[in-house]
């Protein structure tokens, strides 16, 4: 199980949850599982999200492994300037 | 509109071109003589990227008409080095990384060379005010000012 922390702007789309637990071994599986659990998360995920795994920010990768018990945060997609 | 024939001298070479009276010297250097070292950053004399010398006097070539070059002596960045020997300013700008993107560099080199010819021992304030019409957005000017000051010092010691 992975506990995914959402930014507060997303909670209204996830039944008010701050943390969503899903089965996933990598970032891609995790995002798909989030949408299965809360279909309304499709829009923000399509708009682009980044993922922080134990503080390491994954800007866009869908294949990054998620270790058991890792601290996972969803973030607004990071872009450069 | 009828074009005007102009005979002038650029970096010591006699050249000729036909230009519309509305075309600037910068347009003529870049488009008719393929001397693209002088850049157009503003077209209003505010950025100095098009700096050249006209009969030895530093000017913005965007504020000179092509027709006004008749019978004049023009100096551009392409004429600063002597053959394969860079002018001390050019070498110092490379050594000090006094450029990042490099778009303002030709104008600054032409302007700085004109300064050192007139004032071989400028203060930092004199260099900064002389170059106030040469905008640089990358460097914060720090390394540019140091390069000009130290080149002046080297050139003084060399003579």
């Amino acid at each position: 199980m992975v506990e995914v922390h959402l930014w507060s702007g997303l909670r209204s789309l996830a039944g008010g949850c701050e943390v969503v637990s899903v089965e996933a071994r990598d970032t891609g599986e995790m995002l798909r599982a989030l949408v299965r659990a809360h279909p309304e998360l499709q829009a923000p995920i399509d708009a682009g999200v980044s993922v922080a795994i134990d503080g390491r920010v994954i800007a866009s990768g869908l294949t990054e492994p998620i270790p058991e018990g890792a601290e996972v945060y969803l973030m607004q997609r990071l872009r450069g300037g | 509109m009828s074009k005007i024939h102009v005979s002038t001298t650029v970096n010591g070479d006699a050249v000729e071109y036909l230009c519309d009276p509305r075309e600037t010297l910068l347009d003529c250097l870049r488009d008719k003589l393929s001397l693209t070292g002088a850049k157009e950053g503003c077209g209003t004399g505010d950025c100095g990227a098009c700096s050249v010398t006209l009969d030895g006097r530093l000017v913005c070539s965007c504020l000179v008409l092509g027709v006004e070059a008749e019978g004049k002596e023009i100096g551009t960045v392409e004429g600063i080095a002597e053959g394969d020997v860079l002018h001390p300013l050019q070498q110092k700008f490379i050594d000090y990384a006094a450029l990042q993107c490099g778009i303002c560099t030709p104008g600054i080199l032409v302007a700085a060379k004109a300064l050192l010819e007139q004032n071989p021992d400028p203060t930092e304030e004199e260099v900064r005010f002389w170059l106030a019409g040469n905008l640089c957005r990358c460097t914060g000017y720090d390394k540019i000012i140091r390069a000009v000051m130290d080149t002046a010092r080297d050139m003084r010691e060399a003579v």
Partner: protein
Amino acid sequence: MALDDRKSDGFTFVGTRPNRPDGLDKVTGRARFGADAHAPGMLHGAILRSPHAHARILRIDTSKAEALKDVKAVVTRADFSDKVEFAPGLEGDFWNILENVMAGDKALYDGHAVAAVAATSALAARDALKLIEVDYEVLPHVTDVDKAMLMDAPVIRQGAADYSVPEGMHPNVVRKHESGHGDVEAGFAEADLVIEDHFTTEATHQGYIEPHACLATLGADGKGELWCCTQGHWIVQKTCAALLGIETANLRVTASEIGGGFGGKTTVFIEPVALALSRKANKPVKLVMSRSEVFRATGPTASASMDIRIGMKKDGTLTAAQGTFRLQGGAFPGGPADFTAMCAFAPYNLPHVRQVGYDVMTNRPKQAAYRAPGSPMAAFAVESVIDELCNQLGLDPIEVRPKNASREGTKASYGPRFQRVGLVETLEAAKAHPHYTAPLKPGQGRGISCGFWFNHGGETSVSLALSEDGSAQVMVGTPDIGGSRASMALMAAEVLGIPYENIRVTIADTATLGYNDVSHGSRVTYASGLATIKAARHAVEKLCERAAKKWGIPVDAVKWENGCAVPSGPNAGEFDPLPLADITADMGRTGGPISGHFEATPEGAGVSFATHIVDAEVDPETGKTKVVRYTVVQDAGKAIHPTYVEGQFQGGAAQGIGWALNEEYIYGADGRLQNSVFLDYRIPVASDLPMIDTVIVEVPNPGHPFGVRGVGETSICPPLAAIANAVSAAAGARMRQLPMSPPRILAALKADG
């Protein structure tokens, strides 16, 4: 990826300061920038732009222009939907870009393109524009972010808002970001002092000295060539191909030398128009913006209206922070309100924090990224309040900040925990710097500020090929915007163990290398550098294989040292070191050419922090400010070429000084930009600035083999606040509005006295 400790010190090439490979070209006028290209039979393009901030386009009559014999093509948006020139059915960002590149049914800002001409000369093209007749129905406009959110504000585009915007907000509010943790009200209750204040910043332009320029060729066969100044030619290729309805691979884009970008050249403006004109005229078309077009129609940064509330205990401990950030990003979605919110409180360890950002549309040009987009304005507001808290509680701002600073393991205001970061180290270095304790003269004030930026990785491809004589050529895809060729060559030299001078770094075009993300997000030295290192290591593996073959020992018994293959240990056998050039000399006959390459999207860009110290002097009679001393302290992770790292620090500080003091977009009541020339858009000139001192702090980034963190953007985050704090101290009045122009400072002095 763990940092390779052996390499974190004892570098041979990394950390030295050689001359840049393209130095000679840049000082002799030989370097070819966007407007320096020429093609046989070339036409010159020009663009007609809307004089109105908001107007319905009723009719465009181009017949008089088309009748001129010098005119070879005219395009308008009509050509797009006909898909004669442009692609049909675009959606999302592509649609927004198309809409910005050439107005559709409405002109959305002063300077919005409405038609374009290609003619046999630049003068003929400009003359032809005067013959194009456009009938406008002028509509009500709004250019101020707060006014654009009011219920009676004109609607710029219905239905532009996404899922994030709650019911009942004005349609001009198109995105909302909300994040944070804890219970801010409980946190404020614990504070001995809570300050709440309102701050605004104006839109500023990246101000690169080179106007956008391109040379486009597109034939009826759908195959095109494009030369342009851009921060990323693959994004130009992808976008232009989509807008013109051709296959991406059929458009080859070559990046010219680039005369500055700072984020403003990460998208397209004139390139699709030039391609459309070229396709219609069936001739090459050169299109160059005037300075006025650059200001009116390319990306300034967003302007901001911000409310900040922060609580502090008597001992300087921060208890809670809350911020609302309204960003105006022009007539399209995209204002970086999310970044502003996420960066705002990132430097501080806050048990209770909440940040809300709104992206708001107005009748202004589409904002483009500008050096750490969104972060500098947030730092201005937040660091001003922290400064005021320190003043009122009688605390030293450089003592208070480390006490609250984010460090490894701190839960960031935007969510996750920080890995190894260098904020505390920059604060310690700033405190230890003689500048911080130097005496001030009467009328002078000192300010400090911290700043934060995420940095970015992005898609990256690098290819490295060895020559028979043992020299190496490196092909990278990130335009060299400030000396990155030198950094790439240093990193390749470090791995290969051959002289820096024997390495030639080229910016490849889109036809000769795999996809590369734009030169943005401070990613070039990080990502292209990482890819260069990996590509060089790939080549080294092959070199070791050749040596192993020659020696008849297993490849794992060979290691690479100082440019030579050597036996990995005593039991590997006795062989003289085999130099790279000896291996490449007959590589054609020992297995073929030796190259290395790397393609990936590196995900280890380390965030970066900076602390700036500024002394400012205010003339009490005129409100004129002079920056008299400036020191930048920033974590570079590892400085590959320290001189160019210093250059990035100094450049960011200088742009910040302009933003803080004099730069601003000024709109008249008619919604027209009033200062679209450098005469009145006042960027710092040489005589405005002092020398800018720099301190490079090196806290290695675990996500890069040599520890590199991006340095380009973080340097513009602290200046606005640091200068505002210095000016406020000198003037004895808190400055809450940027730019701090003399009339504003004098008014503050009068109000105060």
